[in-house]
């Protein structure tokens, strides 16, 4: 193996952390130097991850790096280890791309704020900790990284501390986030007490020898809930909403696109590699159940939101619910679908948060009830928003469709194979959640970008190019990953999925060949890991052809009207001075602002569900004590379920 490449994982993490400290040293003198340091460290981390693509994803190698060359002695791993397999690198790529986009966006987006040195220092520490988490090969470092991640994220959430609710949101995140970290720590301590090691590979090798040791099982419950907190799964979703609503948009991107992915990564690592227990029905029910409940409750909660970013926050958890649901199915198709959706979620949700940020940057408001008609003033942002909204609602040919399509198949397949009604129900919930997602993005489109333009936003300008470039990067990724799912599957998903199913290889690469076999772990991974055919975009070439035909026909039919049309649009500009009787909607009456407010848009639906909504409204009380209680109850529930039933 190329020894030079071997150093890339640690270098990528180091350069982000070093960048953080250098930023705080040089940043006070010159904004240019500060931005330069940030840009260089982000780009370097991204480039190193890309350089690892060939050996790890394409050739299937696993890169292990022992800090200080403390390699395992006689089958015991004492040193700190980084272990990068395809699964880690897959998430590493997601993280570095998201960090890069978010950082570039911040340069212009944050220019209204002061003390930016603190912002970038925290930002780079957050990035480094997240990258460290997904590349780490031992459990305690995962915990350390989770701690750094949580605290920097809390600080960044409250960065605009003059905003109403900023400190409150950060406090909630801090308190309940600590609950999750504590749960992780307890799980790690339990494992350590039983197995006397913290190395992931060694733990994974030793667990089967423990049989039905209740402490090991309890550790599983604690670790699972710890990662679930980091992914904001039900019942932790109110935190995400409060944090996202007040955080800067670039940080919202990080929280939804990167931090929740750490939870997802943790759950995959835990269930597939560490415990290898996703073949047990109870674990499947547990993981899939948590995913499905989060998916549904969050999408209905999004219906009631008045704040653009709160709405996006609930959708974020809903989409993570999709990911967890798919991962919990325990089949190869499920894992690849989940990974695909995880990647897509980072892309489209990032894009949506950035458009929300653009709206906030230009108008100063995120209130769905007072905004409107911005498509006239910000046409490019509108286009970007529509791409993001179509992706998250799963409209073909965007990427959300390709991954949801796999998730439905995975859930149905699992249900048909086991004859179990639970998985069928999950499939139905997933399909319905998709249409509800669509509905709430229609609501955003109608109440922010279309409809009537309120008086106070008449002078709003389009965002500068420097903010549109990061958005375009994500928008292009939305389209590319949607149009070429076969390639995505072959080069990204299949290697990562095989890594998830090949715990023995993971162990052997860290602990020396034959270690897994000596501890009774089946080697060779899962044979025939071919998941089913991909959604084939060839049909889309046909569709595009149809569209061109239809356009041609319309153009032909409409051609005699072209002159009149031009005339009308030229009138359009002068229309403001005309008499009110030419106002189109009010038959001669003077025009009034009469748009249906965003939150009242789907009255017919909400009326029928009013009891549910009023219950959920009470449930999301906004009191941190309540949220902590929900968390404790959930941990207790999972603990009891695991100990009694496993």
């Amino acid at each position, binding site marked *: 193996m190329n020894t030079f490449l071997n150093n890339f994982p640690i270098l990528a993490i180091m350069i982000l952390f070093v960048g953080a400290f250098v930023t705080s040293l040089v940043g006070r003198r010159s904004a240019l130097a500060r931005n330069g340091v940030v840009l260089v460290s982000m780009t370097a981390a991204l480039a190193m991850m890309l350089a690892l693509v060939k050996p790890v994803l394409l050739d299937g190698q696993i890169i292990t790096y022992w800090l200080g060359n403390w390699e395992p002695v006689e089958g015991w791993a004492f040193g700190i280890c980084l272990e990068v397999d395809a699964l880690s690198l897959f998430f590493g790529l997601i993280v570095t791309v998201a960090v890069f986009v978010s950082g570039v966006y911040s340069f212009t987006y944050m220019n209204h704020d002061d003390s930016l040195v603190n912002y970038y220092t925290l930002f780079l520490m957050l990035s480094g900790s997240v990258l460290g988490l997904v590349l780490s090969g031992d459990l305690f470092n995962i915990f350390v990284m989770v701690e750094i991640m949580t605290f920097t994220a809390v600080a960044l959430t409250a960065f605009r501390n003059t905003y109403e609710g900023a400190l409150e949101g950060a406090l909630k995140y801090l308190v309940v986030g600590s609950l999750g970290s504590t749960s992780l720590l307890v799980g790690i301590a339990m494992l350590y007490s039983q197995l006397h090691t913290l190395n992931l590979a060694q733990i994974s090798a030793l667990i089967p020898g423990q049989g039905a040791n209740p402490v090991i099982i309890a550790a599983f419950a604690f670790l699972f809930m710890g990662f679930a907190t980091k992914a904001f799964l039900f019942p932790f979703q109110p935190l995400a909403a409060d944090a996202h609503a007040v955080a800067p948009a670039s940080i919202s991107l990080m929280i939804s696109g990167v931090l929740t992915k750490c939870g997802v990564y943790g759950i995959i690592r835990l269930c597939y590699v560490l415990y290898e227990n996703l073949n047990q029905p109870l674990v499947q029910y547990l993981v899939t159940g948590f995913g499905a409940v989060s998916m549904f409750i969050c999408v209905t909660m999004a219906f009631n939101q008045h704040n653009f970013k709160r709405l996006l926050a609930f959708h974020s958890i809903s989409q993570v619910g999709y990911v967890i649901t798919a991962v919990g199915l325990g089949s190869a198709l499920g894992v690849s679908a989940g990974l695909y959706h995880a990647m897509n979620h980072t892309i489209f949700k990032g894009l949506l948060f950035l458009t929300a940020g653009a709206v906030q940057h230009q108008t100063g408001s995120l209130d769905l009830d007072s905004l409107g008609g911005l498509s006239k003033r910000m046409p490019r942002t509108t286009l970007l928003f529509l791409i993001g909204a179509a992706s998250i609602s799963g409209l073909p040919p965007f990427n959300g469709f390709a991954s949801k399509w796999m998730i439905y198949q995975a859930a149905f397949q699992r249900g048909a194979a086991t004859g179990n009604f639970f998985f*069928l129900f999950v499939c139905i919930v997933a399909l*319905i959640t998709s249409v509800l997602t*669509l509905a709430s993005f229609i609501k955003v489109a109608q109440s922010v970008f279309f409809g009537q333009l309120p008086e106070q936003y008449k002078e709003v300008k389009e965002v500068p190019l420097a903010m549109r470039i990061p958005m375009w990067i994500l928008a292009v990724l939305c389209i590319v990953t949607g149009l070429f799912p076969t390639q995505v599957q072959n080069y990204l998903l299949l290697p990562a999925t095989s890594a998830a199913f090949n715990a023995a290889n993971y162990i052997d690469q860290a602990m020396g060949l034959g270690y897994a076999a000596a501890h009774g772990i089946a080697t060779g991974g899962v044979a025939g890991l071919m998941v089913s055919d991909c959604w084939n975009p060839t049909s889309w070439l046909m569709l595009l052809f149809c569209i061109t035909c*239809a356009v041609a026909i319309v153009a032909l039919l409409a051609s005699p009207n072209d002159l009149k049309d031009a005339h009308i649009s030229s009138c359009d500009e002068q229309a403001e001075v005309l008499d009110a009787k030419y106002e189109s*909607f009010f038959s001669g009456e003077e025009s009034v602002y*009469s748009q249906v407010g965003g939150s009242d848009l789907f009255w017919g639906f909400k009326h029928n569900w009013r009891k549910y909504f009023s219950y959920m409204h009470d449930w999301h009380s906004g009191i941190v004590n309540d949220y902590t209680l929900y968390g404790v109850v959930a941990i207790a529930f999972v603990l009891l379920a695991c100990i009694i039933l496993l």
Partner: protein
Amino acid sequence: MNVLLSSLFHVLIFPGLLFCVVMGVLLSGLDRIWVARMQRRVGPPLLQSWYDFLKCCGKETIVPRHAKKAVYFAAPVVGFAALISISLFLPIAGGKPAYSGTADLVVILYLLTLVSVCTIVGASASGSPFAGVGLSREMVAMISYELPFVLVILAVSRAILAPGDSLNNIFSLQAIADYQAANGPLITRWALIPAAIAMLFVIPCEVGMHPFDVAEAETEICEGTLAEYSGPPLAVFRLTHMVKMFIMTALFCVLFLGGITTGIAVLDVILFVLFCLILTFLTMSLPHGACARFKVEQVFKFYWTVVAGLAALSLILVWLGL
């Protein structure tokens, strides 16, 4: 070259653009005549919908001042194209579909969604408050029929799976057609009859026909989603509406009435058209003549309780292996 020509033929002639438009005009014309007869009127000529379309095309296009022009013009075209592309997935009259993908039922489900979304986004881009109310209703109607529709799709997909079948080809229309060619139409399976009835209810709501046309209620909200449209874009929307009548009835035929064949391709197509006519009468003309429009919350309640209940019953029966 041959491949290109044959796909051109599929896209433009059969079952693509031309066939869909002809069928749409035919079904819509007959529907208007039947409704007229039920109301003791003579009714318009058969091609009236086509004349309306042509007339609209010749009219001036007025773009409202609040509209976002690009979206306002693109929405009807994209919606229409997406709708036509659905026909390429349908194995019409026992033949092979022009384009066969994996899990194409899900693709069709989402393409139908895309068509409605185009209506909604177009309405939204027109900036009118009436369109705003209309799109809200359209969306609620969509949520309403989506649940039973999904349940029907799941029930049918499960019904054709025999124990031991490979699970790599689920949600495939081709597999459904093949199964019916071997075992007779699915409607003859008693466990699927509730699902078929549910699907009959889904058709008019998806098309937006009278008792369920909450989104386009002329008398209350000035045609809602279409309030601001005029000229060729309106004509395209009208045509979309007609073609949707054909696509939905054809989908029903493919799901439940497959495998009925005479052995001669032309006769099969005529038989297929006949089924579409009967379904149009049953699901669209008859309720149109008999019922007054529902309120939007009634539509939602009806679909999520009665219709979804029927579909769920079928799904449970099928899942239990009946």
